[in-house]
């Protein structure tokens, strides 16, 4: 069809060549990290390091997962999983509830709450770190999952999204529920939530990645290495001073740190793209 615009031939292959070059350049850092995670420290500290994988894959990953540098990486993976799931599920649940209240009820102070929640749109935790840290410290929540999760679920993006979606749900459904004598919570659980499942899934993908990739917050509030998340734990593996870093283990940890979100993005590409587009609207 677009043969009229571009004839096949040289330009067609140049297009592919350009794209393949782009893909290779973008892949290179990850490839190199993977190679480094399969060779020995000796191979790395005498540059140039090899560009093809070695035979230390099992040894390096075992060492990272079981021993790590400050704490076993298996622990950090678990912590990251709890944090990412907690943030994703927590945000979705409180946002579903509050969007339901705002859209389906008329009550005094409704608009006030609406604006209070929406004022928080877009305000990253990075901007208010010191006071938020003090709040968490005051509650004794340092080095706890609650401390890792709670401050990061205070955001309105998800509420806004569900509100927009609920507004498009036909009124007849609520009407029918009322006629049938179903209470608001029945309507919410049996009709509204099942109808929102695609939105929920798309949002879950985005929030999971957001939670998994947090860096500054866990850096501040987890002083105990066994509470470190994997993304922030990598930096802690570098020795202070002039000692040589344990590169194979660090690179194996980097690969492990990017694996879950990458699997989510590739495995749920459609939902991921939808979530990305939705959450930026």
């Amino acid at each position, binding site marked *: 069809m677009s043969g009229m615009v571009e004839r096949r031939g040289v330009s067609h292959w140049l297009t592919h060549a350009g*794209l393949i070059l782009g893909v290779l350049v973008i892949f290179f*850092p990850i490839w190199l990290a993977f190679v480094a995670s399969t060779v020995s420290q000796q191979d790395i500290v005498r540059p140039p390091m090899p*560009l093809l994988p070695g035979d230390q894959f099992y040894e390096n990953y075992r060492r990272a997962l079981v021993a790590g540098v400050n704490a076993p990486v298996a622990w950090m993976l678990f912590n990251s999983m709890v944090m990412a799931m907690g943030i994703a599920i927590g945000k979705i649940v409180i946002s579903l509830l509050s969007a339901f209240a*705002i859209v389906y009820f008329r009550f005094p102070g409704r608009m006030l709450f609406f604006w209070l929640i929406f004022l928080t749109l877009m305000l990253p935790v*990075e901007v208010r770190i010191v006071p938020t840290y003090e709040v968490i410290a005051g509650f004794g929540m340092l080095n706890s999952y609650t401390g890792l999760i709670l401050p990061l679920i205070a955001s309105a993006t998800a509420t806004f999204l569900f509100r927009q979606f609920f507004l498009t749900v036909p009124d007849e459904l609520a009407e029918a529920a009322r006629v049938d004598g179903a209470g*608001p919570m029945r309507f919410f659980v049996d009709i509204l939530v099942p109808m929102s499942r695609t939105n929920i899934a798309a949002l879950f993908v985005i929030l999971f990645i957001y939670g998994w990739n947090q860096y500054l917050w866990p850096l501040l509030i987890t002083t105990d290495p066994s509470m470190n998340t994997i993304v922030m734990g990598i930096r802690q593996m570098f020795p202070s001073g002039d000692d040589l870093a344990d590169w194979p283990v660090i690179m194996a940890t980097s690969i492990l740190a990017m694996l879950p979100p990458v699997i989510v993005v590739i495995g749920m590409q459609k939902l*991921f793209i939808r979530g990305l587009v939705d959450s930026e609207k």
Partner: protein
Amino acid sequence: MEKRVTFKGIWLPLLLLAPQVLVTAVFFFYPAGQAIWQSLFIPDPFGLSMQFVGLGNFEYLFGNRFYRASFVTTAIFSVSVTVVSMGIALYLAVLADRLIKGSGTYRTLLIWPYAVAPAVAGVLWLFMFNTRIGVVTWYLGQLGYDWNHVLNEAEAMGLVVVASSWGRISYNFLFFLAGLQAIPRSVIEAAAIDGARFWTRFRTIVWPLLSPVTFFLLVVNIVYAFFETFGVIHTITGGGPQQATTILVYKVYADGFVGQDLGSSAAQSVILLFVVGILTVIQFKYIERKVHY
């Protein structure tokens, strides 16, 4: 927009709102209020009492050479990240859009660096450019170039810009490709029949039609560069050398947690709140414009 059909009750909706309102109040409004309050005081050297200084912290900040330098650093950094990541993404998206088949495959291959955390991206790039063992450093050395971002300010800035742009290319690529594919083929074919070459078509038709996407990405990428690149800076340079890569968000952290200068850090938070406010307004303006189209 309002619902015609609603449910009765006052306590139930308040109960439904409670979790979000509570979390927002405790972890958003209270800390933000604290930041504003603390920005008006300086603690004594022993941290025992606070002395009210009014806008003194702000005056001090704007008179401070390092803080003003941090503004300039942030500007250079954000503009560079935005231009580099959007430029490369647009180039790749235009190529992918030219394909009749297979653009989906390239999309799959290109989007997933988005999932890599900025801090992990920092570690990957640090590894390649490590002054002692980095592969790229070694090959540059063979070419006679002595790479040392630990000492050289421009190289440090270049490295954090590239590391921050890298994952962002995926995101921008996705939106550019969607934008390009939304342009009706017939418009482009008509121009082609009229004999317009690729570059002319791009300049006169594609680029103007793409401008809403471009504008949106511009704002989003600046927000990203401002606030979400802390991990990259912290892993690669730690703000150095000589504060050459200390962006504003990094300085809030460095002054508040490392330097323990709470008043100054709080004042910086307030200034950042202000910056976020402006960016939000710009973004909302954009949304309005999109709705009116």
